[in-house]
């Protein structure tokens, strides 16, 4: 099966001379449709740097970031912005919902900006799958933390993105809710055949992942079986 996303020999260096930081060194990574991939690593290891490069928010110092075969690094900032809008779904730490839009308006906004009709049926299906009934007219601040992240998942899945990037999506949740959110992400990947990358520093959350990458001091390695994570620490 073809890779949805592939990073080839990606390095990212901040600064220069003896103060230079190699946030990523020679990273290789791949993910396919229907896979749920976790990236785990301690603070400062380069997880966020990886995610911003995968999202095309910044360009690598060297290497290739291939999304369905096109190299993001060669695209203009404007093209990358449009690419994110059209093909990438995001789930950020403390919910990326817009505080002054109701749940259904979060979806309507996307359609407005895409100059197309509101895909109400698609939204309904996603919200139902995520057990978010009768919340259409609620504002984000009226939702619980778990509900908010589930709406964020629904929003990330809206319009069939090629890939979903989740940046510590459980950071603001207690452990029961964290497991629930991760379980749902895993089943979305499997049931809807989506590629989902989750970045986390919490080892308990990675057990259901299809693939786990461990990152340490900018160096990334694929863990063949998940137990090695435990033995590593």
């Amino acid at each position: 099966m073809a890779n949805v996303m592939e990073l080839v020999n990606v390095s990212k260096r901040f600064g220069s001379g003896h103060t230079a930081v190699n946030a990523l060194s020679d990273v290789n990574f791949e993910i396919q449709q229907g896979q749920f991939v976790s990236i785990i690593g301690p603070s400062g290891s380069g997880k966020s740097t990886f995610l911003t490069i995968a999202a095309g928010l910044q360009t690598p110092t060297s290497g290739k970031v291939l999304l369905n075969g096109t190299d993001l690094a060669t695209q203009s900032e404007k093209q990358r912005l449009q690419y994110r809008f059209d093909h990438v779904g995001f789930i950020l730490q403390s919910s990326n919902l817009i505080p002054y839009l109701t749940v259904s308006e979060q979806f309507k906004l996307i359609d407005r900006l895409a100059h197309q009709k509101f895909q109400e049926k698609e939204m309904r299906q996603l919200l139902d799958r995520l057990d978010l009934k009768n919340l259409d007219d609620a504002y984000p601040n009226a939702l619980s933390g778990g509900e908010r992240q589930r709406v964020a998942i629904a929003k990330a899945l809206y319009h069939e993105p090629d890939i979903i990037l989740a940046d510590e999506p459980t950071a603001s949740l207690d452990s029961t809710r964290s497991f629930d959110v991760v379980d749902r992400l895993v089943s979305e990947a499997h049931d809807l055949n989506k590629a989902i990358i989750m970045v986390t520093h919490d080892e308990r959350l990675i057990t259901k992942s299809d693939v786990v990458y461990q990152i340490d001091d900018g160096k990334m390695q694929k863990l063949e079986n998940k137990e090695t994570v435990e033995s590593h620490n």
Partner: protein
Amino acid sequence: MYLGLKEMRYEKLRYSLLTGVMVLIALVVFILAGLAGGLSQGNRLAVDQWQAKYVYLNKDANKNIMASQLTTDATNDVKGKQVANIALDSTVVRKIGSNNKIDISALGTANNSFIMPKVTSGHKVQRDNQIIISQNLKDQGIKIGDKVRLGSNDTKLTVVGSYGKSTYSIAPTMYMNLATLAKIKAAGTPVTKPLGINAIITKDSQLSGNKHNLQRLPINDFIQNLPGYSAEQTTLNTMIYFLFAMSLAIIGIFMYVLTLQKQSLFGVLKVEGIGTRHILASVVTQAAVMSVISVAIGLLITIGIGAIAPTGMPFALNYPQLGIYAISLILASILGSLLSWRTIAKINPVTAIK
């Protein structure tokens, strides 16, 4: 657009307060415009009604008609169609048998001169000691057939006709022939010929000689030099322009502060592929909506004030001009909101992922 409008709905109080401030600014702009218009009209309405093109004054008068002394034979130096002598006096009128004094501008010109107003009731000035009065003087209780006195002069004048609203030097006008006005200005001393006048008003004309030390002024130049006229207008207009700058600054600062507050949200939007253009559009939409609403409310209130303003208050609404001011206020607000453009453009989406 959508984003901006939805935010205004969510943050009603915040945006209504700013709209309220904008209403006040718009109101002050429109009221000042009304006052400037009223004062302008009070000074020049009679001059506008002449529909003249050039005014001849004594060169030594420094363009001030009250300082300009000429005699009727100065017209010999002016060649052209529709040439009218004019004398004027600022005085008070009093009905005989009444103590009620009204400030007026008395204008003297030949009975058949082109600047003599067309009467709408009664008849024209035909003889000495006859006067015709403006509608606004009529509104203050003087009627056709009344006998009046001007200033401290004893001459009894008869009101024989009236014409529409007309003011000069912030006072209602009355017209009479040159001999009558000369008699009143001379106040007892015998009147000599040729009669003294202040200016020659013409349509198309040229100087054909200059025995009388004349200076030809285009009518606009003459109006700008009416006593007090440009000082008043400049003062009021400067205030109006200053208010445009103020509304730009207020909207600009307010939207800038809101933008700073929302930087992290805007960062998230950029992560999701919603770029500077859309974010700025939402900010501009908000400024446009607020300014359109506040300008509309300001206009309504101003029109209301215009309708109930007491007759003595110089207040005149010039709708095309109000329209221009309304559009300027809206443009100033939109321009103000564009000041946030750099800040929005500089927000780096990378900061949204930590």
